[in-house]
Structure formats: structure tokens, C-alpha cells
């Protein structure tokens, strides 16, 4: 599904190399997790894949189902099936959550040459999906993420994911700022979306989230590279011993 090959990225504004040769492949239907200490480049990887400005790819490639991602605009990547659940979802005053979602869903359908959803069909769909994430009508009416609690913002990210039905979902520290109950709710939302044709890349600091969203493969990232790859037990090792052991071992 997602294939990242020798990806090197530096910040545009300063001459600072963040990713130093990332290699990663997430097959269809699989959940991969990336863990790593602060500053290892996890969030940068998610931003570069989704097309945020400010980063320069100096070497390497990233493909989604064989198609080169890095040449596409952010909206084209989204239409191709990529989705990033933001670590810090952006507040957009003045744009209603519902309007935003309908515009997004229909823009993607249009880009893929599909018919736009009618207002009635859209409403039916969103009500159904919102219900399972415990998102009430008021949250749908309010401006995007404005005045939402941390948990509400993350649930709203998952709602967008559910509505847009992407093939490749990247979750950037979706557990940050969530209490245990909120994390469970979000994890349930994610698990409900797991399917054969959909892959996940879950970026997190802590093993906790991975108790709820069980990964197939765990990667450890440090200093702009994947330094170790293993099964779910790798996450437990991090939880028990921290990153220090792994870093020393690799060095």
C-alpha cells in the first residue's frame, strides 16, 4: 500500500536534515506503528507524506499503491486515499463542521470521477458515523474544532476518516491529550475502520494506544531513520525499558 524508499527530508527554511533515509513498507490491510523519542522525525514523516509546505525532499520516494505521492498536491493525495489524523487538529472559525465535511467528501468524490453525495444521503451517512463516535448534532453544527475539547478534536478526526474512507490512514500521536476513556473511544473508531483494503500507520510515543489498536508491526524511529522493526512485543520492550537500550544496541 504505502512504500517509502530512502526518504531524505530537510526543513526548507533552515538547512536542517530531519529524515535521513527512511525505508518503510505498509502492506494492504496492515497496521504498522512507529514509535520513537522526541525529535526523531515521526511527525515530519507524516507531514511530508501528506504534503505540508516547508519541507524539502532531497532524496528518495514515497508511493501509494505504486503512484508517486510526493509530486501531488495535498488535495490530490487525499483523493488518492491518503489521510492524516492531525496531532493538533486545526480550529477553523466560521466554517461549520458539517459544511467542511460535505465539501471534503464531495471534492474527493469529484476528483475520483464519482457523483457527489446528495444532501440527504450525506446527512444520513454522517449521522450514522457520528453516533458511533458519540459526536452529537451540536458538534456537527459548530465551526470546525472551535471550542472542542482535546478528546472531541480527536474524535472529530476519526469522524473525518470514517466519512472519507481513505485507503491509507496515518495517525499522528492521536493519543496525545486523551484520557483513558477518550483513547478507548478513539481506538474503537479506528478499529471499526480496519479492513483488508485499508492500512494504518500509527505514530505514538506510548505503548498504551497499541493496547487498543493492535499493530502487526512496530518500527522504532530515531534520528531520522527506522532503526529497528519487530512485532508488537517491541512496543512492550519500549514501555518497560525506554528507548535507551534500543538506541545503544543499534549504535
Amino acid at each position, binding site marked *: 500500500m504505502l512504500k517509502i524508499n530512502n526518504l531524505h527530508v530537510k526543513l526548507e527554511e533552515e538547512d536542517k536534515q530531519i529524515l535521513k533515509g527512511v525505508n518503510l513498507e505498509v502492506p494492504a490491510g496492515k497496521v504498522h506503528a512507529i514509535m520513537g523519542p522526541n525529535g526523531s522525525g515521526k511527525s515530519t514523516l507524516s507531514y511530508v507524506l501528506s504534503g505540508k509546505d516547508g519541507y524539502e525532499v532531497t532524496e528518495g520516494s514515497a508511493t501509494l499503491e505504486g503512484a508517486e505521492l510526493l509530486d501531488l498536491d495535498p*488535495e490530490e493525495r487525499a483523493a488518492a486515499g491518503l489521510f492524516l489524523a*492531525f496531532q493538533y487538529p486545526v480550529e*477553523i472559525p466560521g466554517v461549520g463542521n458539517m459544511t467542511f465535511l460535505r465539501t*471534503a467528501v464531495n*471534492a474527493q468524490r469529484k476528483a475520483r470521477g464519482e457523483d457527489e453525495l446528495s444532501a440527504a444521503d450525506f446527512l444520513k451517512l454522517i449521522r450514522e458515523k457520528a453516533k458511533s463516535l458519540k459526536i452529537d448534532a451540536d458538534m456537527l453544527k459548530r*465551526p470546525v474544532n472551535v471550542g472542542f475539547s482535546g478528546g472531541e478534536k480527536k474524535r472529530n478526526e476519526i469522524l473525518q476518516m470514517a466519512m472519507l474512507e481513505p485507503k491509507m490512514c496515518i495517525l499522528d500521536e492521536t493519543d496525545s491529550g486523551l484520557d483513558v476513556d477518550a483513547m478507548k473511544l478513539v481506538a474503537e473508531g479506528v478499529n471499526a475502520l480496519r479492513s483488508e483494503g485499508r492500512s494504518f500507520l500509527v505514530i505514538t510515543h506510548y505503548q498504551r494506544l497499541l493496547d487498543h489498536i493492535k499493530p502487526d508491526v512496530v518500527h522504532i524511529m530515531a534520528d531520522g531513520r527506522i532503526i529497528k522493526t519487530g512485532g508488537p512485543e517491541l512496543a512492550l520492550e519500549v514501555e518497560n525499558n525506554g528507548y535507551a537500550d534500543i538506541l545503544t544496541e543499534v549504535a
Partner: protein
Amino acid sequence: MALPQAKLDATDARIAALTLPEGASWAREAREGGLLRLRTMGLPGPRDEYWRFTRPDALNAASTPGAAIFKSDETALFGDIDRLRVVFRDGVFDADASDDLSLENIEIERLETATAKDIHWAKDLYGVLETRGQTPVKRPFAAMNTAFATDGVVLRATGKVSKPVSLVYLHEKTDSDAILHFVIRVETGADLTVLENGPAAARFNKCMEVDICDGGTFHHVRAQGRDHERLAVTHLFARLGEESTFKSFTLTANGRLTRNEAVIEITGDNATAHVAGAAVGDGDFHHDDTVFVTHDAVNCESRQVFKKVLRNGAVGTFQGKILVKAGAQKTDGYQISQALMLDEDAQFLAKPELEIYADDVICSHGSTSGAIDDEALFYLSSRGIPNAEAQDLLTLAFLAEAINEIENEAIAADILSRLEGWLERHRSA
């Protein structure tokens, strides 16, 4: 201090081709009074405090520079709204194009007819609110309007008027130079909505005097047409009685020069005055909102909400004042003026002013200028919304606070659709 000879000469040159219209003696006196005020203050110049951001040259010129006729493919604004249409063609009332002027709870009369009568309610208002509004800030074009206005209507609402009175201004001659004057009286407890739509002329001078008696409600929504080359200077004078409501919204899209002045005087307790505007300009566009709200009563609320979207050399200016007189306690005044610059060539000049002589008041004001928020733009794009569409969405969100000032939902939706259309036509290449 006497007016410098050069300024007096320029003023006389400006009005040389105009004549004081005939009328009853009170109307004649009012017009002569306007002429005297104009010749005492003279035309504005760049040294005048309230004309530093807007060059009045094209308005001062003896003849209009002219404006090409704009052909619109849009359906008529307010077309789906049940309204009573009063049509002016290049500043001349067109009875055939207008609806029947009789409607329950309102008297509608052409200015010419009203000012010919020896006894008329308009006597107490024509040029009267304009005169009150000349202190402390001079408004020469309003005085000129009182003197020389050639047409217009006077409206007197005596109860709840069932549908809006819609003033439709058609512009069909490239050199039309119209001066229209409107006098509106909303009697005690009456409720009136006035819509205005269209450019009116190549050069347009409009003055509207609105007197709202105790418990009266006046809603005003206007759109100034889409003509690119037209010039307009407009004045809206309002006097508010006790527990009255005044709400005015203006949409300005395009126009080489627009100066909209609103002079609002709150004289009765517990009154509400909102004045708002959304202006969008691309290229040869200069838009000026000059607002003066005076609180002279207790427990009143006023809001000024002005938003401008500018690109490609367009200029927006805002001069807004809240004056709270001594004794006007419990005043709640709010003022916001914001510009969204869609590129680096746009310009926004703002001068917020507060002058407060009462000690138990809340007055807040803010003014900002900025670009589209990159973070928000990326967030929308990352969800598959194409850049141009995402920009429009964020621009409309920026304008929303002003549009929300329109109470009638159908009218607000109509205004919103005009803005959507404008943004779509003016997307960056």
C-alpha cells in the same frame, strides 16, 4: 475661519452645472441651507482629517469621469424576495418599472411631490439629520446632496410593513451623475426593512436620513452593484429613539471609489444600533467606510462590523468612531474592522476612535489585517478540498461575522451567494 478662495472656487465649479430644485418654501429653505453649509465648509481635500486615506478628486471633479456599463449574467439580487420595488434609472424614478407604491402601514411618496407640499412630515427631517451629522465632522457631499438632490422617495412607516421596500438603482448611461435623497420615518413601534441594490449611476451621491421613533425597528440591507468603474459617495444618517433598533448591512463588490458614511445618533435609552459591511475588491478598487456612532442615552448597544477582502492593488479604509457622551451610562459599544489580504499588493488603512465621557461603559474595538491562515488551508487541503475552494471557504468564514448581522435569512443567503460568486470569479490564477 473663511474658506480659502481656491477651495471656494473649486466648490463653486463643482456645483456650477447644478440648480436648486423648486419646492415648497420649507424645502427651498432646507436646500438653501445645504448650499450654505457646503459653501462654508468647501469640498474635501487631502488635508482634511477624514479624507487622508481617500482621495476625493474624482468626487470633487465638476463632471463625472464616466463609467462603463456592467453587464451581469447573474439573476437579480433579492429576486426571490417578496418586496415592493422602487426603481431609479440613472437617478431618475421610473414609475413604469416600479411596483404600485401603495402598501399597508407605509406611505411612499416621490421626493419631488413631498417637497412641493406646504405641509409635510418630511419637513422635520429633510436636511435636518444631515445637519446634525455635520458636527463634529464635516460631510460636504451630504450637504451638497440636501441642496441639489434631484430625486428620491420619502417613506413613513406607521406599523409593521409586510414586505421590504426595495430601492433598485439601474445604471444605463456611461456619464450619469445622480444625486438621490431619501427620508425615512419609522413611527413609534413601526417596523420597516429597506433594501437597496445597484450602482445607480456612473457617479452617485446618495443621502438617506432615517428617524426611528420609540420602539421602532429599521432594517437596511444594500448591495452596491458590480460595476467596476463607478464612483459613489453615500451618507446614512440615523437617529434612534427609546428601545428602537437599527441594523444596516452593506455589500460592496467592485467599484473604483466608494465612500460610505454612516452617522448614527442614539438619543433614546435601551436602543440598539448595528452597522456592518462586507467589501470585496480586486484591482482598481478603493473602498472607504466612515462610521460615527454617538451614544447619548443610557443602556444602549452599538456594533460596527466591517470586513474587507482585498487583492491586486485594492485598497480598503475604515474610519470608525464611538462617541459616548457624558451620562450615556451602561453603553455597550463594539467595533471591529478587518481586512483579509489575498496577496501582497493590497492595502488596508484603519483608524478606530473611541471617545468616552461616561464611566460605566463597555467599549471594545479591534482592527486586524492579515493573509489566509496557512495552517487552516493545509488542513482543508489535506481533506481533499482543492486549494481555490479551500481559500474561498476560509474567505467566507472571514466575512461571516459581518453577514451574520443580516437578520433575515433569505436576504442573508442571497448576499452570501453573491459573495460566493465573486470569490469564484476572482480566484488567483
